[in-house]
């Protein structure tokens, strides 16, 4: 291990001692809204926002209390209660890593709550929507704040539930109901990995608490068990974070309302996998373990797959979903590089939370003005009618493609440079991915805001109300400057170091490294190519047939087809076989036995003729046989 991780200190009192309030506020909000139901219809959304904001305030106060401690004392465990006697005590771990997540979740979460007031204003189930959002925030906070894997897992399932409920929020749409089910089922596969990983941790180390695990895992411990734990946790992370090969649910998840896509399926929940990998770093980084390499490979593969998918989508939300996959791929790649990459992975996670939420909400704002049209071929020239949405979206766009000095430039290039340094092949693939990002994001911006109007006849686009645009502005501010703040002079890295470890040498900010220049060049090429194809040239308002490659990307790289042929079809055969066996085999034996007994007894009852002499004859024959038998054995 190339780093030193600080000891965990027990803590009582103060804001950190009451950090459970962070989880309690939104949980109580969800409870009130769900239990009191219609009675809260009038003010339910305000309560939801208030609870989320209260949680944010607690997080900020806890953050300031935390940085008041010395660097080596910034990992504070708060004991709450005995959860499973003799096995696990429930407690919270407030350290730089978890507090960063908590700030992101509550901060961006609150902004999205506020935005939803406007976005869901005309939905008759707005109160239910806010109760689910609050439930999500509570579960997500439990996920990142718990000081043991059991608490993490409860939060993990909680966000899965909230995600399911919110994807299927408009459950009257069959597509939404199916998408929700798909997300749930695919996530079960990942949860299986996490759960089995936890089982192995428990049997190997006898504890599931982060603090005790930190003491028990020897540095440099490497064997098959550690590798197995690492790979199983990676499977869990893949499910939640929509990484290959469990990526297929995220694109369908866009059936949910747009604020949900922004909060859950872009900014926070889907990054839980990255959190899991970073938090469980000890299982991934024994010397020579393949688990970390597996993480990096999964990340690199997904960042390319997501980018390619993003290139061909005409649905603005699905395009953004492909991009989310891709960006989380970058984070995974960073998390697979060890302490050197952790800070950039988390940094990219935070800035991505801002600029992707910004763009999703921007897309929501566009949809809001365009009668919920999502097809970008029906947009065009919207920058004049939606100036605020355009400017904020454009800032998010510049941030994601890594335009110099914006957020994405610092965090994504940090990941790329670290990757080129540690895993050159994966690093250069990430450079290629950045170029593709430049293309598909530019395509999205040009198709939506530039070019000719291709609106439907009944579309009257208009700017959204302030309650929606103010969160956009705040998020775009984050997209502008947060990356520079976090990365320059290694601020985030030094802040996170006590929790995740410090790399041997601190990364230098090197704006003219070859990989950085190559990235910028490729992004520029991608953007110019997109301008020629979608900005300057006329965009057909009906989807053209496209080449083989376009179809390949449109169909999500045949991910669904692969799942169908590999898992669904054989599964169906298996169930059919089981049904056949049940009907013919099990039922056959039981029914056959009953029929046989029934038939033979039907024949046997014919013996009962009702004539006394028949019975007398049978008695005589029996007696004669008995006598004969006795004579035969010679007893008489």
């Amino acid at each position: 291990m190339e780093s030193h991780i600080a000891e965990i200190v027990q803590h009582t009192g103060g804001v950190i001692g009451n950090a459970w309030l962070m989880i309690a506020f939104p949980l109580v909000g969800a409870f009130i809204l769900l239990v009191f139901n219609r009675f809260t219809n009038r003010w339910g959304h305000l309560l939801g926002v208030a609870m989320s904001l209260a949680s944010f305030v607690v997080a900020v106060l806890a953050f300031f209390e935390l940085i008041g401690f010395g660097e080596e004392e910034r990992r504070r465990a708060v004991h709450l209660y005995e959860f499973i006697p003799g096995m696990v005590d429930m407690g919270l771990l407030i350290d730089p890593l978890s507090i960063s997540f908590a700030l992101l979740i509550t901060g961006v979460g609150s902004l999205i709550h506020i935005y939803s007031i406007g976005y869901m204003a005309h939905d008759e189930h707005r109160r239910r929507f806010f109760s689910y959002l609050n439930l999500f925030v509570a579960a997500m906070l439990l996920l990142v704040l718990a000081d043991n894997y059991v608490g993490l897992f409860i939060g993990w399932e909680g966000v899965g539930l909230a995600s399911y409920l919110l994807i299927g929020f408009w459950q009257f749409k069959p597509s939404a109901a199916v998408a929700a089910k798909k997300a749930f089922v695919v996530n079960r596969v990942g949860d299986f990995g996490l759960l089995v990983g936890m089982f192995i941790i428990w049997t190997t180390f006898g504890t599931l608490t982060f603090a005790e695990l930190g003491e028990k895992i020897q540095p440099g411990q490497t064997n098959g068990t550690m590798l197995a734990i690492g790979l199983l946790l990676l499977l869990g992370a893949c499910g939640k974070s929509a990484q290959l090969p469990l990526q297929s649910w995220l694109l369908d998840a866009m059936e949910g309302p747009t604020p949900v896509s922004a909060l859950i399926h872009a900014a926070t929940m889907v990054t839980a996998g990255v959190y899991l990998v970073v938090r469980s770093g000890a299982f991934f980084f024994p010397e020579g373990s393949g688990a970390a390499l597996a993480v990096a490979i999964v990340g690199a593969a997904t960042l390319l797959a997501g980018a390619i998918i993003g290139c061909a989508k005409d649905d603005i939300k699905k395009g953004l979903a492909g991009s989310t996959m891709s960006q989380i791929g970058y984070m995974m790649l960073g998390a697979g590089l060890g302490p050197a990459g952790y800070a950039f992975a988390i940094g990219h996670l935070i800035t991505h939370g801002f600029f992707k939420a910004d763009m999703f909400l921007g897309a929501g704002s566009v949809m809001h003005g365009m009668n919920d049209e999502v097809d970008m071929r029906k947009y065009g020239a919207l920058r004049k009618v939606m100036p605020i949405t355009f400017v904020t979206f454009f800032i998010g766009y510049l941030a994601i493609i890594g335009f110099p000095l914006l957020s994405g430039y610092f965090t994504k290039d940090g990941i790329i440079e670290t990757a080129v340094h540690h895993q050159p092949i994966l690093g250069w693939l990430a450079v290629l991915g950045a170029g593709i990002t430049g293309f598909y994001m530019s395509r999205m911006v040009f198709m939506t805001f530039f070019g000719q109007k291709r609106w439907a006849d009944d579309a009257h686009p208009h700017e959204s109300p302030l309650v929606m645009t103010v969160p956009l502005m705040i998020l775009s501010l984050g997209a502008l400057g947060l990356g520079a703040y976090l990365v320059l002079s290694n601020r985030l890295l030094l802040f996170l170091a006590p929790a995740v470890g410090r790399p041997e040498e601190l990364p230098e900010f090197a704006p003219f490294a070859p990989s950085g220049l190559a990235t910028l060049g490729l992004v520029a090429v991608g953007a110019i190519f997109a301008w020629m194809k979608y900005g300057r040239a006329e965009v057909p308002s009906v989807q053209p047939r496209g080449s083989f490659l376009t179809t390949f990307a449109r169909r999500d790289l045949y991910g669904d087809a692969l799942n169908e042929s590999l898992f669904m079809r054989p599964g169906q055969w298996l169930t059919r076989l089981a049904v056949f066996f049940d009907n013919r085999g099990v039922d056959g034996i039981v029914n056959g036995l009953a029929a046989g007994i029934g038939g033979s007894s039907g024949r046997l009852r014919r013996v009962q003729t009702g004539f006394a002499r028949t019975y007398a004859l049978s008695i005589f024959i029996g007696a004669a046989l008995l006598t004969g038998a006795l004579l035969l054995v010679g007893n008489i």
Partner: protein
Amino acid sequence: MTTHYLVLSGILFAIGALGVLIRRNAIVVFMCVELMLNACNLAFVTFSRQVGNLEGQIIAFFVMVVAAAEVVVGLAIIVTIFRTRRSASVDDANLLKY
């Protein structure tokens, strides 16, 4: 010699058994049953004489007691059946079947 008694007992038993099997009149069947019982009694008494103890004779008395009781119940049943069906044929009383 007691063999003759045993032969007579066997003949009487066979006649009784045959009567039970082939006659239809309930009274006659009943009398045939009595004939078989008495054939047995004869055999018991004969063996008692043959081996020289009294057990066989005692059992013969028991058989007679049972036969008397049986006559009471059996005749009552036959009379009742005759009253309801105006027939004493055992083949007519064949409702208790499949």
